[in-house]
């Protein structure tokens, strides 16, 4: 397959950045989007040009490192996939594909398609943890948790922290990410001790980082590679109100 790529190139944080056009030929339809970029970069390196910088690690949709806005969609077309899981067969042969970094004030571009997502880390430091005695491995089922609750918590825990929710949201809101993190711990007995402070502090940090306000358009849920439900945002709201009034 052949494609024309329009890729955002930006030298560093302070550079203004611009789109550059590249032609790429004979790409296997089964190549992932990142593999296609690898091929492009090999060509660029051979010509002595600077390769396109992009984030990646596991390349199997579990680490949350990758993330590119492709043709106006976070992680590209298709549902429930990360950029590394996107195959070139999802595009028309000969298509022009536009690739841009996540765009949000709290995610400044470091280089090309790589953004700084430490704002998510700081939200996690603010309350995305439990304080517990870590001794030996506890017995399985030592703390009984009803199956539906465990399932719900597991669904929330599937969040890989990629930031697609922020990138897709018209308000650059991080509510789906924070909702998933707060939900996961609020549902389980281990999360009860810091339950109140967690909701308050994580929301406070989220606001301080400059993320926007959720307006319930639910673009996040549609683009999340882990299909995290906006029901977790409702739970975050509930947790926040609960913490405020009690």
């Amino acid at each position, binding site marked *: 397959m052949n494609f024309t790529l329009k890729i955002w190139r930006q030298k560093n944080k302070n550079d203004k950045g611009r789109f550059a056009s590249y032609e790429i030929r004979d790409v296997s339809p089964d190549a992932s989007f990142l593999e296609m970029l690898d091929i492009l970069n090999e060509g660029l390196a051979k010509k002595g040009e600077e390769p396109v910088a992009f984030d990646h690690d596991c390349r199997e949709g579990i680490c949350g490192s990758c993330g590119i806005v492709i043709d106006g969609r976070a992680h590209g077309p298709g549902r429930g996939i990360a950029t590394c899981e996107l195959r070139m067969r999802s595009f028309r042969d000969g298509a022009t594909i536009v690739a841009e970094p996540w765009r949000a004030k709290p995610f400044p571009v470091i280089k090309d398609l790589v953004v700084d997502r430490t704002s998510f880390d700081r939200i996690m430091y603010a309350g995305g943890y439990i304080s517990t005695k870590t001794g030996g491995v506890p017995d399985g089922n030592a703390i009984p948790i009803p199956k539906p609750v465990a399932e719900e918590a597991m669904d929330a825990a599937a969040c890989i922290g990629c930031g697609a929710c922020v990138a897709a949201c018209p308000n650059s809101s991080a509510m789906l990410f924070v909702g998933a993190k707060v939900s996961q711990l609020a549902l389980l007995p281990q999360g009860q001790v810091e339950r109140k402070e967690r909701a308050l502090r994580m*929301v406070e940090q989220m606001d301080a980082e400059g993320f926007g306000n959720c307006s319930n358009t639910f673009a996040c849920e549609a683009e999340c590679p882990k299909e995290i439900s906006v029901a977790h945002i*409702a739970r975050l709201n509930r947790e926040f109100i609960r913490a405020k009034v009690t």
Partner: protein
Amino acid sequence: MKSLFAFFSSSIGKKIVMSLTGLFLCTFLAEHVAGNFLLFMNDNGAMYDAYTEFMSHNIVIRTIEIVLAVSLVGHSISGVIVWLKNRRSRSENYKVYKLQENTPLASRITMITGSFIFLFLVVHLRTFFVPTRFGTEAVSPYTLVVQSFSNEWYSAFYIVALIFLSYHLRHGFQSAFQTLGLKNKKYSRLLDWLAVIFWLLIPLGFASMPIYFAFFYKAGPAALVLGVQ
């Protein structure tokens, strides 16, 4: 006081204000449309005039009226603050951004629909509320309705405003429950049905009034006196 300020300055806090005030405004709409159906009593407005007379002198209603005004202002102000903040949160606009593939139209245009409704309210209050409440001479609200809606342009403006209202509530009503954390799998179906009352039935109910008076109403004696035909 300090914690109240902190609450309002938090992102979720502002939205809770929006949802509570929004829902209160919804209950008002329900009451308003129900009362207005008295316009169709075919009694030359006797019951409708009596009803407005009662509403404007009842102490409970007058108190609620103040809450209503405060809600409207609170809803609008927090809406604008949230909207401005959201516009500032994107670092740079996307070259290609296919938001329309992921989101319903109504959810993307609340600021536009809201602003139009606000504009409509100014005109609406100027036409009906100001003369009946603050006017120097006594006017029959019913004749005012007949007079105003006999102008097709004025009626058309109402109908457009109601379409905007419908879109606003299509998103807003269920959105309020989501923000208050009251939406989950168990209730979301029920909420969707309840929402139909607000985004469809109520706007339709209101729209029936200008449509009726502009196109189907045959001027009764009261209107004739005023030279409306």
